[in-house]
Every structure is written in C-alpha cells, then in structure tokens.
C-alpha cells in the first residue's frame, strides 16, 4: 500500500468519494465550534477590546494562504517528476482557494488594523508581502486559464510555482529590509514559549484545524470536478475522432 496508488484517478475518485462527506462534516463542526467559542465564550483582551476576535479568522486564513502555496509547490513537484495528473489538478484546484485566503487575510487585517493602528493599510513588510503573494496567485491562475493544452498548462504553471516560491520568499525578506513594520511578531511559533494565553489559544487552534479541514474538503471537491472535466473532454474528443 503506497501513497502513489492515489495517483490513479479511478482510485482517487473512489477514495475521495468516501472521505469527502466526513471531511465536510468534520470541517463544519470544528469551524462552527471554533468560531462560536472564539466569538461568544472568550473574554475581550484588555488592550485589544472586542476587535481581538478577528484573530479567529485572520490568523488561520493567513496561515492557509502561505501553506496552500507550499502544498501547490509539493504537488507541482510531484507532477513534474512523476507525471501524476491528479497531482497537477490538485495544484490547479488549490490556487483559487489560496488566492481567496490571502484576500481574506488582507481584508480582515485591514478591518483589524483600522481600530488598532488607525489605518486600513500600511506598507508594512507583512502586509506588503501578502499583497505580493496575492499577485503571484493571480499570475498562477491566469496562466492556467490561458494555456489551452492541459499538459502544457500543468508543466508551465508547475515551473512558475517553483520559481514563484523562491521569489515570494525573497520578496518577504526584501520587504523586511525595506520598511520596519507595525505588525506584531508571530503569534504562533514552535520554538518559543506561547505568546498568547490559553483562553485565546484553544479556540484559535480549533479554528485553524477547521480551516485546514475546510481547505481539504474544498480541494477534494474541486479536484474531483477537474478530473470529471478532464474525462468529459477526453470523451468528447473520442467522439469527434470516431
């Protein structure tokens, strides 16, 4: 039993068909619990006021925005090396979700920044690099949309994803150098002691799990759609040939 079995579209469709309802259900439960917990059962922080509640959308969305590109990077590599179509389609399916997550992080950040910093937008390194990440997502999606041959599109976007990952990272550190930021440091990090109290931490963890599950469910649905669209295209082509 190896993970590469799921590269077979038939096997992928069969398994994802079984997994999907569970993922959707679990995502709904964790997301709703996390958000309700965070919004109604957590005291307001003293120097943040009620606006701290944005954190339950802002932080998970920002985390997903970066990690979705990493996921696209991995699936693109798998496609470029092992030529598994499902992998390329998963990368295609994930890109618009990543773009929306980036947008959510930017908008909730603006909503949060207005009462906290007194401004909707500031050319802070974190904000700026997210804007650049959003542009990379747009370019990636546009390239997928404009190349007709699916295999060529998969190859080109795969290369773009690899080079883009390097430059998105480079832009992040260049932006750091360019301007000192307003944004607070990382809320969550593995190597340091916790930065926020447990009351806020557990619902946040719940929301993050919810976002991850929600993303997995969406990617599964969208990849299944792509696989079906590809089959439909193949059938139509066969009909035309006959």
């Amino acid at each position: 039993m190896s993970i590469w079995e799921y590269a077979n579209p038939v096997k992928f469709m069969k398994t994802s068909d079984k997994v999907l309802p569970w993922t959707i259900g679990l995502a709904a439960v964790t997301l709703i619990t996390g958000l309700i917990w965070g919004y109604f059962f957590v005291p307001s922080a003293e120097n943040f006021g009620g606006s701290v509640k944005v954190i339950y959308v802002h932080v998970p969305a920002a985390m997903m925005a970066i990690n979705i590109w990493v996921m696209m990077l991995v699936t693109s590599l798998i496609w470029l090396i092992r030529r598994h179509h499902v992998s390329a389609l998963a990368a295609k399916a994930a890109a618009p979700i990543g773009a929306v997550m980036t947008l959510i992080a930017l908008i909730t950040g603006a909503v949060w920044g207005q009462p906290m910093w007194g401004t909707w937008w500031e050319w802070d390194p974190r904000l700026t690099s997210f804007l650049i990440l959003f542009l990379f997502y747009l370019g990636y999606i546009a390239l997928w949309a404009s190349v007709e041959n699916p295999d060529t599109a998969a190859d080109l976007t795969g290369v773009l994803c690899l080079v883009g990952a390097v430059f998105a990272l480079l832009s992040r550190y260049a932006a750091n150098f360019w301007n000192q930021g307003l944004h607070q440091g990382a809320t969550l990090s593995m190597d340091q002691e916790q930065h926020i109290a447990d009351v806020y931490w557990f619902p946040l963890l719940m929301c993050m799990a919810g976002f991850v599950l929600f993303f997995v469910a969406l990617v599964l649905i969208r990849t299944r759609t792509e696989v079906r669209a590809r089959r439909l295209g193949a059938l139509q082509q066969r009909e035309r040939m006959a």
Partner: protein
Amino acid sequence: MIALLLRDLRLAVRAGGGFGLGLAFFLIVVTLVPFGVGPQGEILARIAPGILWLGALLACLLSLDRIFALDYEDGSLDLLVTAPIPLEGVVSIKALAHWITTGLPLVVAAPVFGILLHLAPEAQLWMIVALLLGTPALSVLGTFGAALTVGLKRGGLLLSLLVLPFYVPTLIFGAELVRRGAEGMNTQVPLLMLAGITAATIALVPFASAAAIRVNLR
C-alpha cells in the same frame, strides 16, 4: 552563440523600435512625472530614484514579448531548440541581447534623466551602479516570463502580471541603494543584496526558461 548574439542585436537595430523605443519610453515617463507631482525640486529629488527604477522596469517590460515571439512565429525558435548548443545557453544569450538593447541604454542615459529629476549629485554614481547591477536581472527574469507565454496569442498583459512580482526584490534593493547613496548612508547591504540577486538570477533562471520553452514547443 556569438553569432546568435550578433543576429539578435542586428535584428533589434534594423527592425526598428528595438533600441530607441525603450529609451524614448523612459524619457516620456520621466517627463510626465513632474506634471503629475508638481515641479518642486525637493519633491522630485526625493522620488527620483523610485521613478527612474520604475521607468527602467516598465521600459524593460515593454520589449519582453518580442524576445521569443518573432522567433516562434517564423519557426527559427524550433531550429534554435534543435541546434547543437544547449537551450539554456540560447536563453542566456537572448537575455544578454535584450539587456544590451534595452538595459544598457538606460544605464547610459540615467544620469541625464537624473538631472531632469533633480537627483542629488552624490546619488548619480549610485544610480548608474544600481541600474548596471540590477537591469541584467530584469532581462533574465523577463526571458522567463516570455518563455512561459511564448505559445499564447495574446500574452502581453499576462506577461506583465507574471513578470512584475518577480521584479519586487530587485526594485526594493535597487531603489534603496540609490536612496542610501543620496543620503550618504552605508550602501554595502543593498549593494551586495542587489548583486547577489542578479548573480543568482543569471545563474539559475535560464534553466527554468529553457524548461518552459521546451514545454511550449513540445
């Protein structure tokens, strides 16, 4: 490879528009900026490094789609791919030819445009250094974008969307170098970062461009 370089340069010069167009565009940008922000010298001097860099960026972008498109249309790109020299080398030479026709004239003309924008005298030298170090990276990254979109009918707008985010680090460090030079601060860090980005770009990106061309000609 030298023959290829000479051929590209000759094409750029004789076909018209290659050499002068980027420069003329640069001049127009520099001329329009004072109309937009007002003729006060101190404001212009403050934003001059950024304007010159943006002008260089846009002038470079304008001529990108020509790098491979013409060769693709008349079939000579197929010949270049099957030629006994590595495609990575072809791509690098193409980038070099593009730099000589658009980047180099900008570097040479930058002091003149700097005077138009009241760029501080002590920043002039840094402007030349920054453009000299930074524009090769713009050309090489541009070839990557051109290679991705070579098979497309209307790749122009898409090309800008793909290429411009890649220019961010070069722009940041290039403009910062000139700004620091103008204010007499330490310029070592942006100088080294700019040179490092250009060197790494020249060394690595041609492989990605060549891969994209191979895919597009499959």
